[in-house]
């Protein structure tokens, strides 16, 4: 009886399940299509904006860099790689690259070491430290515009406070921003100050992420605070330090505002960093083609730095 029933009903069942499966397939692919459409609707606004203000300009930059342009921005003719050839033959551009690299070397290591010391000193749980944490984080909200103007006045040769403080300890006044030997140093000093908040916040949250037990067990083993810092905290902090180093180098290559306000690239191009020279070439001299060539050099440098971040040091940095 049972067997007969089974035999009889089996084909019918099979047909039914097949049908059901087919229907489900249809609705599934319908669902999938609907999800696809919905996803693109969600992505639409961002995609559209990126296409107009990012992907198209990237292509346009390459196009412009291969052309000569008239001062209104219209393309005057194809010049091939001439813009680039001209760049690397020009002393001004090569010196600008040197200035950009020196600026990064002056600001990045100093800024990170300073922030690291402050972060280490305020990482404990003693009372009152949160007040200092707030103070050291504060520069993070300052813009390059207002910071530069404040320092412009601090650097003022006759009425500025920095020269006044020097006079209090019987030092001669300095022409901070006009002396070709000192201008880049002065701009760097201001930049280190401006970036301190960001560096401090990143490093102190990195330190806070390291479990207390590691610190304590090392202290129980008789390691002094300096030793704990050098042997345990520093290696564990290395991913954060590395992240910060790359981000800082990239942002130092993008510096513009402080140069534009404090020195205008001078004296004698000693502070004429890459982005400032792009600005000058395109928006002061109205040579958009050769300005774009400079912008692409910046692009290549930043992409290389980012690749370094992803590939090379990934292996060398200690991860927990």
């Amino acid at each position: 009886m049972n067997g007969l029933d089974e035999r009889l009903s089996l084909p019918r069942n099979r047909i039914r399940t097949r049908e059901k499966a087919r229907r489900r397939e249809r609705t599934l692919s319908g669902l999938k299509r609907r999800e696809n459409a919905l996803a693109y609707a969600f992505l639409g606004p961002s995609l559209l904006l990126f296409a107009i203000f990012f992907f198209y300009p990237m292509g346009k930059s390459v196009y412009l860099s291969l052309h000569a342009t008239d001062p209104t921005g219209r393309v005057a003719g194809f010049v091939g790689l001439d813009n680039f050839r001209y760049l690397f033959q020009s002393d001004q551009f090569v010196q600008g690259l040197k200035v950009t690299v020196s600026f990064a070397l002056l600001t990045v290591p100093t800024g990170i070491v300073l922030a690291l010391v402050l972060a280490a000193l305020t990482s404990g749980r003693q009372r009152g430290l949160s007040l200092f944490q707030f103070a050291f984080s504060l520069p993070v909200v300052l813009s390059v515009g207002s910071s530069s103007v404040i320092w412009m006045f601090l650097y003022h040769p006759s009425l500025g406070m920095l020269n006044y403080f020097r006079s209090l300890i019987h030092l001669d006044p300095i022409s901070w921003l006009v002396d070709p030997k000192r201008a880049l140093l002065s701009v760097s000093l201001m930049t280190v100050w401006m970036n301190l908040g960001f560096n401090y916040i990143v490093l102190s949250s990195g330190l806070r992420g390291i479990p207390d037990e590691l610190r304590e067990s090392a202290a129980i083993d008789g390691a002094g605070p300096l030793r704990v810092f050098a042997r345990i905290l520093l290696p564990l902090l290395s991913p954060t330090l590395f992240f910060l180093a790359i981000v800082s180098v990239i942002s130092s290559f993008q510096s513009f505002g402080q140069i534009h306000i404090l020195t205008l690239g001078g004296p004698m191009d000693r502070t004429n960093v890459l982005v400032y020279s792009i600005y000058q070439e395109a928006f002061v001299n109205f040579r958009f083609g050769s300005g774009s060539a400079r912008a692409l050099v910046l692009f290549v440098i930043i992409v290389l730095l980012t690749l370094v971040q992803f590939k090379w040091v990934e292996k060398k940095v200690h991860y927990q």
Partner: protein
Amino acid sequence: MRRRLFAAVLYVVLALCALAVLYPILYTFSTSLMTPGEASEYPPHVVPHHLYLRNFVDVFHLVPIGAFIGNTFLVSIVVMLGQLVTSSLAAYAFARMNFMGKNLLFALFMATMMIPWEVTMIPNYLTVRGWGWLDSYPGLIVPFLAASFGTFLLRQFFLQLSAELFEAARMDGCGHVRFFLSHVLPLSRPALGTLAVYSFLQMWNAYLWPLLITNTDKMRTVQIGIAMLQHQETTAWNLVFAGIALVLLPSLLMLALGLKQLVRGMTVGALKG
């Protein structure tokens, strides 16, 4: 005893460092309270001898700082709202939906985060000029309405929301749109707050783009206005610093209210390595 001494030394060192770090800000606020005579005296006064609040009125006559502040507030708020909408939508698609080309598109989004904006500024300037948007609000606002940083930040946050919640809602027949609006967004307030603080400060502090595309006092933003102050009347330092102090206030307020949000935003990159 030794520990006490160590702590005392630590506090003294930290206090000196804090003083050095804060000095430019303290100097700004103290000079903004000086009378014109006091501000130009030499040797300079380190602290003002009386509180001269008239500067905050007079600076409005020196430059149209009211218009600068109004412009920048408008631009920053609109960009902030725009980024919250575009980024949360895109982030939801990347975090919770399956669609063709997802990985490729995500890689494209991430690529825009790594490439500095300065590289694209010349064509963008030409585009905006071609549309007749120079010296206008759309020119200041529209190029910044989408943010790959915001998308990344929110995606990371949406991925942390529990998967069970998502399954349960789907089981109850809740579609993506309703789930996004009534569950994901309310649960993501902290991350949205971070992005809001970020995008606001980004626009409030922007320098290069407003410098390129604005050329009348009517459209200038605060940072450009502030930089103009130094050429205006170099003798009236008290007024210049009153202007700077006014421009710094919203940023400092943001810090007091939103330090946690800021820290979260900065560490999202660091922790992911």
